[in-house]
């Protein structure tokens, strides 16, 4: 629809015409609130969030979404370690080297995952700060949730980059955010968590809804942060390790505890009523499973099969007890190493999907019968623990064992990813005892956990290396490996397909786009 008036006038009409133009010139160029609400109040920038509950929904939805993604945060925390490798298989998973550089620590300031997580987490910090701001009039409970979320997001920034930009919500775009040092950011995270604990709801260890933080969730994170204080501050403060022990004891006093029985049932969503799980998000576990399984490993709810990418390393497999060359069901391997199915054990329920380390012949359930699967070239689908010579490129479609904490045996796209467990807290306490020089007490705690895991013998002694290995065996693929390896000083060490480094990769590079937009940031050493 278009109206067009061309008015031709004679000279004597100029004056009225100009008046008409003048009248029209008051036509507004302001946009109307037809689908959104403009911020209102004294500031053009920020006058409080209009709906703190809605903002918190977004903040926690984002944490969930980022946890469900196999790239970005998950890739940086797991593929950078000895737990995972995403080998380039012919042309598949080449992706311009984005996965290879993470594994061998050659990521640079333009690495897409590094930039993405930087943007995600820093943005989340600001949105939490907005909810916390008095202008938002959030309830004390909402402020406590926002402080927990800010601490969680800011902790990742300080852990990943060692520098934390901080923006006051009322600052306009012309204000360059200030930059907190690692120590200052650490202090702010500890303060937020301490304050959050006071106002968060009481813990309900058997609740079917662990999507939002309770006191135990904040205590867990505070214990985690303090246990890493030596990395962030150079050395532990005198009370740090005692605080870790006391926080874990308080979580236990709330009713959380170690859960025996089937280890992999701990990760069976969508809700987690077991007293081991402290926090979970609603994100689907689909990406975590299908990113590794072969194209021909399909499920009635995912007939297209897996994406044949993520694999684990033989050297990580070797940290577990059991036979070296088979992980078949019914063997003597320790429980946490999981199992692969045989033709005989494959049935309509498990559809051939095992748990833990997957290598050797893979089976599926097709047309009412168990079958040995084939790869795309028609050869038996036999995953090998070993890779092509270089490991990174030139792989075929069967190299590399696959690692499943969540399995399609429980459904192709089960919901719910575990974020924090009591077993982790329990091991944090053991580590704090060990670091305080009390190796005997630490060993008792570690063996208490091992005792409830089937086929897992008690350790005779405990040192730093065996402590780290135990954390690996219990907590693999739960997002802690990078953090653990840095704390134990071995993230830089040589591993399969990576030579030893100088340690600069313990901190990620500041993204190039961030350096461009904030002169207060300085590139981390080595990049």
């Amino acid at each position, binding site marked *: 629809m278009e109206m*067009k008036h061309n008015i031709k006038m004679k000279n004597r009409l100029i004056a009225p015409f100009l008046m008409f*133009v003048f009248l029209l010139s008051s036509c507004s160029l302001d946009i109307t609130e037809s689908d959104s609400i403009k911020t209102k109040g004294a500031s053009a920038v920020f006058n409080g969030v209009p*709906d703190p509950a809605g903002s918190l929904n977004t903040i926690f939805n984002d944490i969930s979404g980022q946890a469900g993604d196999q790239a970005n945060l998950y890739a940086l925390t797991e593929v950078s370690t000895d737990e995972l490798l995403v080998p380039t298989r*012919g042309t598949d998973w*080449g992706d311009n*080297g984005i996965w290879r550089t993470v594994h061998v620590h050659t990521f640079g300031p333009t690495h897409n995952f590094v930039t993405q997580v930087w*943007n995600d987490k820093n943005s989340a910090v600001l*949105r939490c700060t907005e909810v916390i701001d008095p202008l938002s009039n959030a309830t004390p409970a909402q402020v406590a949730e926002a402080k927990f979320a800010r601490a969680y997001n800011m902790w990742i920034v300080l852990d990943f980059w060692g520098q934390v930009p901080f*923006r006051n919500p009322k600052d306009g775009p012309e204000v360059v955010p200030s930059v907190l040092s690692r120590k200052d950011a650490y202090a702010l995270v500890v303060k937020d968590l301490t304050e959050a604990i006071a106002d968060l709801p009481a813990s309900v260890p058997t609740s079917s809804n662990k999507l939002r933080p309770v006191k135990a969730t904040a205590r867990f994170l505070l214990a985690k942060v303090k246990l890493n204080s030596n990395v962030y501050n150079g050395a532990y403060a005198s009370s740090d390790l005692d605080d870790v022990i006391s926080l874990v004891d308080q979580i236990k006093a709330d009713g959380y505890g170690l859960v025996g029985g089937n280890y992999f049932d701990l990760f069976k969503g969508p809700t987690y009523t077991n007293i081991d799980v402290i926090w979970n998000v609603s994100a689907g576990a689909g990406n975590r499973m*299908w990113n590794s399984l072969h194209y021909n490993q399909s499920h009635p709810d995912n007939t297209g099969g897996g994406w044949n990418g993520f694999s684990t390393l033989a050297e990580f497999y070797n940290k577990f007890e059991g036979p070296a060359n088979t992980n078949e069901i019914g063997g003597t391997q320790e429980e946490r190493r999981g199992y692969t199915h045989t033709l005989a054990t494959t049935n309509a329920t498990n559809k051939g999907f095992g748990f833990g380390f997957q290598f050797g012949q893979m089976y599926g359930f097709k047309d009412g019968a168990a079958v040995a699967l084939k790869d795309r070239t028609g050869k038996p689908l036999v995953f090998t623990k070993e890779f092509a010579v270089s490991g990174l490129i030139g792989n075929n479609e069967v190299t590399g064992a696959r690692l499943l904490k969540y399995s399609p045996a429980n459904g192709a796209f089960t919901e719910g990813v575990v974020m924090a467990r009591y077993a982790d807290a329990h091991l944090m306490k053991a580590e704090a005892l060990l670091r305080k020089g009390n190796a005997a007490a630490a060993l008792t705690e570690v063996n208490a956990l091992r005792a409830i895991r089937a086929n897992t013998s008690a350790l005779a002694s405990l040192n730093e290396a065996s402590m780290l290995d135990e954390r690996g065996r219990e907590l693999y693929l739960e997002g802690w490996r990078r953090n653990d390896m840095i704390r134990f000083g071995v993230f830089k060490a040589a591993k399969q397909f990576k030579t030893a480094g100088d340690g600069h990769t313990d901190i990620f590079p500041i993204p190039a786009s961030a350096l461009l937009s904030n002169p207060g940031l300085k590139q981390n050493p080595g990049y």
Partner: protein
Amino acid sequence: MLLNGVQGFGQGQLNNNKTTNNLVELTLNYTKTIGKVQIEAVGGYSYQSFQNKYYWATGRGFTDFVNFDNMQNELKSSYDAGNAAAVGNFGGVINNWGISNDIRNGTQTSGGFVSGFDAGSGAFSQKYFARPGGVTLAAIGANFYNNTDYIQSYFGRGNFTIASKYLITATLRVDGSSKFGSDNRYGVFPSGAFAWKLHDEDFMPEVFSTFKFRTGYGVVGNQDGLGYGEFIRRDRYSDVSVGDARQIGVPGVSTQGSVNPSLKWEQTKQFSVGIDFGILGDKLSGSIDYYVKNTTDLLLRANAAQPAVNAQIFTNLNATVENKGWEVALTYAAIDKPDASLSFSGNVSRNDNMLKDFGGALDAGTIRGQGLSLAYAQRLAGGYPLFSYHLREFKGFDATGQPIGDNQVFVGKSALPTWNMGFSVNARYKSFDLAMYFSGQFGQYVYNNTANAFFVAGSINNARNVTRNVLTAGEAGSAEAAVSTRFLESGDFIRMQNFTIGYNLPLKDQKFIKKLRFYLNGQNLFLITNYSGLDPEVSSSPAAFDLLNGLPTAGIDYSAYPRPRTFTLGLNLSF
């Protein structure tokens, strides 16, 4: 491509866009001759509004997911029933609604919810309701947008002709747009031009039937690419979508736009100088032009200084894009008789493009294909032309068939042509006429993304068809086909763009039919190029989530449709 959770359930999306534009324009013309000066002036005012009202709805879990017609009907009927229930349960402006048996994060775990705000008080709220009977899809969610932008312009133009020899044109536009904040809402865009008809001067030799000198300078504004309300902080409920398990997460309120009152019009300043000439009664005529065009304050969606509410912010890039070059056009009327004519025309132009005064480096040129996620082929950096390729230098394959070279660098080539040329012939003999037009571009390079994604040894290794040359290239089936100069090709071409032959039926003077013409027209009849893909003249539109977020792309050929070859047999009748 099959998506998770689609097989066995079906997924559909319904989009509805309604665009309404209104224009009020008032102009005033003034003509006067004072002595030897002839004045023509135009003043005007215009006010335009552009309303874009749209919604998009996605549904999963169809009763019948095999028949597309049935799916379409089910999506539409479920949408209508869901929307009626949402509207019935909510009084204000609706941002979105969702209906599923699996509602996440809400106080209600199944049924429907509707989110929005009260336009008067600005209060946000969400309401829950029971699943309406007419919604047969397992889950459906819809998001609603309603944006209106305005442009208000004042403009004036004066043409002064002095002694029929000197021509002066001056224009001034003042454009205001609601896409900018109050600080820089209006842009002032002046321009001026001067021409001198030298052939009317006594000192010009008679051989020149036309000789005109021209020069001009002008500023134009641009606000393309900028969306609604990008400069201001606004809040609305985040979009809802339906997940793999047919679940819908209840959305929270999120912030749109970033406060940026200083956002302003992108400006292009152009200086040009040239001559028009004609010799021997314009039997040979032509023009020569030189221009320098500088674009500043480029509107670009850039990464915000974190922490930022939104990861990206529309800013005026602190850089200059310079285009400079020249153009020569010639026309020769070889024959010009009442019953026969023949003329040849040609033009050649050269353009040099450069991004200047820019300190950063931004990746661009998103490459697609399996195993090529997040790969890019171009980089925006100061001192290089736009669309400069940033690639691995491909040095062949090693003994084991793996590619040599794994470091992306500027390779000194760009997707922009440096030379453009055109050539046309027009002929007429009695009742027959003929016209043909060739065009060509030279100096540009095309990234053959299609070959990179499909025609590599890894592709046949994965049991996909490839072109024959792949088999003998020496590449191992296990090799990665990383982005490299291996797939960069010269895009030089000459195209037979248009060919028309016509016949005018001689008609006796009579009243009924005035003209009767038959013609045969062919377009894109042939293409001369060494490019191995289908067509080196590629134009693919940027997709969502591409690098540089919606900025135009150039030179990336990913299974682009080639230009069609068109034949038209026509008949023109005039009464």
